[in-house]
């Protein structure tokens, strides 16, 4: 479980996040949603410690991130996996080397064992016969899956995904969403996904946190969204015709 407590963050005097508090449960896919520039990426990066927090704290299973020393932070980071918006795979390494990288760096396992684990992770994300290819030689969807395989290589307790569907077609997006959902339940991870993809919201949103102008405007589940009485959330979620129609159906009880 990850608990965000009164988190605030500013850059060059400009307040990006203001007093954000929420809880992300274990074994659930927790979504942070909001418009571009709303502060959701800053929130995610502040949670994982890539941005230093100005005020507030982040509790990892009860342990305060702010009060941790560098050694403790380092240990905690080895329990994290992160999927970046652009996959962030190492260009000069093959697919297998990318997945094996955290194992090479952070374990003392023999090479065979590391290879087996990398192959297991690649198979788990439904990738076969791509081990020797370089990231530039595979599609965007495959790159995302390699990045997921790398993120789960060390069997993390926490999984963070920044816009996992960006640049992907709707069908591949659903595959990635379902994969993240399955892995979250299988490995009992606390997963936080940053997205503005409404299909993800409706598909895998166990918990949704809506951020607007750096403030937490609303939180709830995907089922609560249809009854939410929040103007900003409504204008964001139901901006498209399709979702307005879904809401009408939902209200009429014809799901």
């Amino acid at each position, binding site marked *: 479980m990850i608990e965000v407590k009164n988190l605030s963050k500013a850059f060059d005097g400009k307040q990006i996040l203001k007093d954000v508090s929420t809880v992300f449960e274990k074994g659930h896919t927790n979504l942070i949603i909001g418009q571009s520039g709303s502060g959701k990426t800053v929130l995610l*990066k502040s949670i*994982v410690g*890539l941005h230093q927090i100005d005020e507030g704290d982040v509790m990892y299973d009860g342990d305060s991130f702010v009060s941790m020393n560098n050694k403790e*932070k*380092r*240990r*905690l*980071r*080895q329990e*994290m996996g*992160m999927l*970046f*918006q*652009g996959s*962030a*795979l*190492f*260009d000069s390494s093959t697919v297998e080397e990318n997945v094996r*990288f*955290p194992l*090479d*760096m*952070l374990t003392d396992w023999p090479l065979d064992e590391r290879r087996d684990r990398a192959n297991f992770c690649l198979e788990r994300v439904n990738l076969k016969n791509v081990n020797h290819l370089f990231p530039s030689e595979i599609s965007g969807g495959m790159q995302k899956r390699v990045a997921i395989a790398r993120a789960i290589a060390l069997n993390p307790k926490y999984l*963070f995904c920044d816009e996992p569907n960006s640049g992907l077609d709707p069908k591949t997006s659903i595959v990635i969403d379902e994969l993240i959902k399955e892995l979250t339940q299988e490995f009992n991870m606390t997963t936080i996904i940053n997205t503005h993809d409404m299909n993800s919201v409706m598909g895998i949103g166990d918990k949704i946190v809506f951020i607007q102008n750096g403030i937490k405007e609303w939180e709830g589940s995907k089922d609560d969204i249809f009854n939410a009485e929040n103007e900003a959330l409504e204008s964001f979620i139901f901006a498209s015709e399709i979702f307005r129609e879904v809401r009408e159906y939902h209200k009429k009880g014809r799901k």
Partner: protein
Amino acid sequence: MLYHLGKYTLFLKKVFGRPDKHSVFFNQLIREIDKLGINSLGIVLVISVFMGAVVTLQTAYNIEMPFIPKYTVGVAARDSILLEFASTMVCLILAGKVGSNIASEIGTMRVTEQIDALDIMGINSAGFLVLPKVIAMIFITPLLVLISMGVGIFGGYLAGNLTGEVPAAEYIYGIQYGFRPFYIVYSLIKSVVFAFIISSVSAYWGYHTYGGALEVGHASTKAVVTSSIFILLFNLLLTQLLLA
């Protein structure tokens, strides 16, 4: 200026942290020696041979007096190459070639979040990416400078001989006349300092790139300009310290 100096010092502190895994560090080091050093050998050879040739011919044309012996050209060419051209000139070229390579590679890794990916794994990204480059450059640059010295002097021999300005025997006598081995030591000391400047300053600009392709280009330019200025500054300081 002070802001960047402070930030650079903190960056170096991170770079010289203990490597996460020594076997991985060693592999990285070998790769960087090949990429930054061995791949620069071609340009160093070409520049050195022409530099030696030009220095020899210019000296020969400028001291065409009957009472100055021809071997003086060999002496002047040797000292110019050993003291200045082989180290400073080669390192300025390396600042352009290697410096821009380091800054753009690390800068691209920064803007594509590959450095964030390392940080999130709990890996010291600055140490992992930069330390092998710094050590590789410190190790390989003096070797390149030594090669440059030899090739430069040979270039002078070729030019003098082919144009008939300096007879071979006179040139060979000249390059041996009054030779001071300390000149080589002085040049090697300079090359180690310059190698550190090129690698660390370029890595600093690359590591602190934020934005996109445009900023990577800016970082690359800043790396070359800053490294070159510091090379010239330290050239002056080291000359005063070592030769005065």
